[in-house]
């Protein structure tokens, strides 16, 4: 392990911590919408007139608890992401961070001086600028992480600030549409951080090093399947975010049928009747034909995703089995096998997610189940992104046998296989692998 290797270990764990904190933030965001608490704090960035860090705990009641926690954890994630940007970008990131931080600090102070209406937003911006300046002040002379990690760091840097701004604007501008965008961007942001975790891992570096001697081939059809399935999941998450942010509860109260039919009546009279029959304990918006259509689409896309991810998992396992056979007893093609295993986890995740979706309906949108549905949605997208990136990195099946150029040598797949520690490939391929592909 060389020095660079040593230094990247903590970076990997820090990226993991940031991604984990983001998942928590996403979960609390899900709780905010599940509890209809998005507007429980009417002001932003202040909280009931208080600086958000000094809002008395005795006031953290009802919906405020979720919304205020969301804001505080968001601040923590923001700080973590700024630090991550500095770490990934290395010493060269100090200058741009200093410039951006300084500008934000000055702009914040200027905004605060405009008048009492702008003071909150001004202080908020100045606070961000201060954190960015602090990151720029860190004098460690660390080298930038390998490409494209510094770039990903900067995308996260701007992403997290846009997210914070969108979250605040959603509150003060009364726009549900901003909430939809905010939620979708959150999912993409989590995916981005998961990719940073993957790319900073030793597993990935070893793979990259091995492939650089072998040459990564053009990608297989499997990669495109995985990309398509992941894109489908993103589309599904956007539908989900739209449904959540219309605050209309369940547009269709039953599953697998819809209003007792395979396809529900959606004419104006029927929709009016649905609304009048609803006796909701909480203040929900009336449902519309559009929302019924949206939920039916969500159900159909769920089915498509199940099939698509199922196909991906099956194809990945077939590939692993084929390359395993080509290599004989020597398990030289560990990355392919890892991909197969992760794909299976992905498929399992989708199954759980589908079940959570059904349970959300059966429980009349219980807040905990609906929130779990959001979290598993984020995990499904992130894992989809991870398998897609890995599969595009791997050589195509025709070349899968090629890497054994130097059996027993220090380079190539054997070395890779030995070094491919452990996250996904510590166990041998189960003998029942074939059953997953049929």
């Amino acid at each position, binding site marked *: 392990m060389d020095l660079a290797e040593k230094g990247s270990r903590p970076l990997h764990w820090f990226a993991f911590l940031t991604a984990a904190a983001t998942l928590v933030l996403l979960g609390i965001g899900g709780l905010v919408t599940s*509890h*209809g*608490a*998005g*507007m*429980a*704090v*009417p*002001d932003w960035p202040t909280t*009931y*007139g208080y600086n958000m860090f000094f809002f008395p705990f005795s*006031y953290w*009641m*009802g*919906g*405020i608890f979720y*919304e205020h926690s969301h804001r505080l954890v968001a601040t923590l994630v923001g700080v973590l992401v700024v630090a991550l940007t500095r770490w990934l970008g290395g010493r060269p990131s100090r200058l741009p961070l200093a410039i951006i931080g300084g500008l934000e600090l000055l702009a914040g102070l200027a905004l605060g001086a405009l008048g009492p209406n702008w003071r909150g937003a001004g202080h908020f911006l100045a606070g961000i600028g201060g954190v960015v300046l602090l990151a720029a002040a860190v004098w460690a002379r660390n080298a930038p992480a390998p490409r494209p990690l510094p770039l990903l760091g900067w995308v996260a840097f701007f992403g997290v600030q846009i997210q914070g701004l969108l979250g605040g604007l959603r*509150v003060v501008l*009364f726009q549900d549409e901003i909430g939809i965008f905010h939620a979708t961007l959150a999912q993409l942001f989590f995916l981005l951080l998961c990719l940073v975790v993957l790319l900073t891992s030793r597993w990935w570096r070893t793979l990259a090093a091995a492939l650089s001697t072998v040459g990564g081939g053009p990608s297989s059809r499997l990669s495109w399947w995985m990309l398509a399935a992941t894109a489908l999941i993103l589309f599904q998450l956007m539908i989900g975010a739209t449904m959540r942010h219309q605050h209309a509860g369940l547009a269709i109260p039953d599953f697998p049928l819809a209003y007792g039919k395979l396809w529900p009546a959606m004419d104006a009279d029927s929709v009016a009747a649905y609304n*009048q*029959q609803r*006796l909701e*304990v*909480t*203040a929900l*918006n009336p449902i519309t034909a559009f929302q019924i259509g949206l939920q039916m689409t969500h159900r159909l896309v769920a089915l498509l995703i199940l099939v698509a991810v199922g196909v991906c998992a099956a194809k990945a396992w077939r590939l692993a089995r084929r390359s395993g056979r080509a290599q004989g007893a020597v398990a030289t093609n560990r990355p392919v096998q890892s991909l197969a295993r992760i794909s299976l986890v992905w498929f399992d995740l989708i199954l759980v997610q589908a079940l959570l979706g059904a349970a959300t309906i059966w429980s009349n949108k219980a807040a905990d189940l609906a929130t779990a549905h959001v979290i598993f949605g984020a995990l499904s997208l992130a894992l989809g992104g991870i398998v897609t990136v890995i599969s595009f990195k791997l050589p195509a099946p025709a070349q899968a046998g090629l890497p054994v150029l130097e059996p027993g040598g220090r380079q190539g797949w054997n070395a890779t296989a030995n070094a491919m520690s452990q996250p996904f490939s510590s166990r041998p391929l189960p003998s029942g692998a074939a059953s997953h592909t049929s």
Partner: protein
Amino acid sequence: MKRHLALAAVTALASAFAATAGDVVGTITLKGTPPKEKDITPLKEDPNCGKLHTAMPTTKFYVVGAKGELADVVVSLEGISGKSTGASAKPVVMDQKNCIYVPQILAVQTGQKLVVKNSDPVLHNVHSVPTVAGNPEDNKAQMPGGADLTFSFPKAEEFIKFKCDVHPWMFAWVSVFDHPYFAVSGADGTFKIANVPPGKYTLKANHRKAGVVTQEIEVKDGAPTTVALSLDAK
């Protein structure tokens, strides 16, 4: 002779109150059995608001008397506009009591002040969600013992939702008319729209859950118009 005297007395009495205008009075009854109201479990379980209730609070979708007298029906005359007395009208008050809006169904004129009080020992946010263009959405904080809030709407709109996002079971509905000829039926199912200029009108009764029923009426000079309406439970 007696009859004439009585008639004269009624006419004199009516003209003493309104020389050229009549009242529209009536009763509203609900036919059929309404669905059972739901328990507001989250309210009872809330650590702050639950303490304010000894019994399980329930929803009030149908407030019905023993003989079917239906409360919370918004009754209004159709086809009149531009007659609002606006901000000069006496403000309508909605209170927040035990983490519930009282009353839950209200009606105001365009521009008329709707004053929202907080009688609770807890804070609320008061969030109005109109849907008609020109009526802005608003969301205001109200601490325990905080100053009254004032809302008003420039455009007519029926059943504007008011809600508290801190306590998601709290909601009220405010109808806005650009004239003063409306009323909300009371617990005895009666309503009174005062001082209606003579003429033919469509009377509209609108209930959140039971829906709408209309009736053609004619308001004659100096005589009250009596109406009996009924709505079906859905």
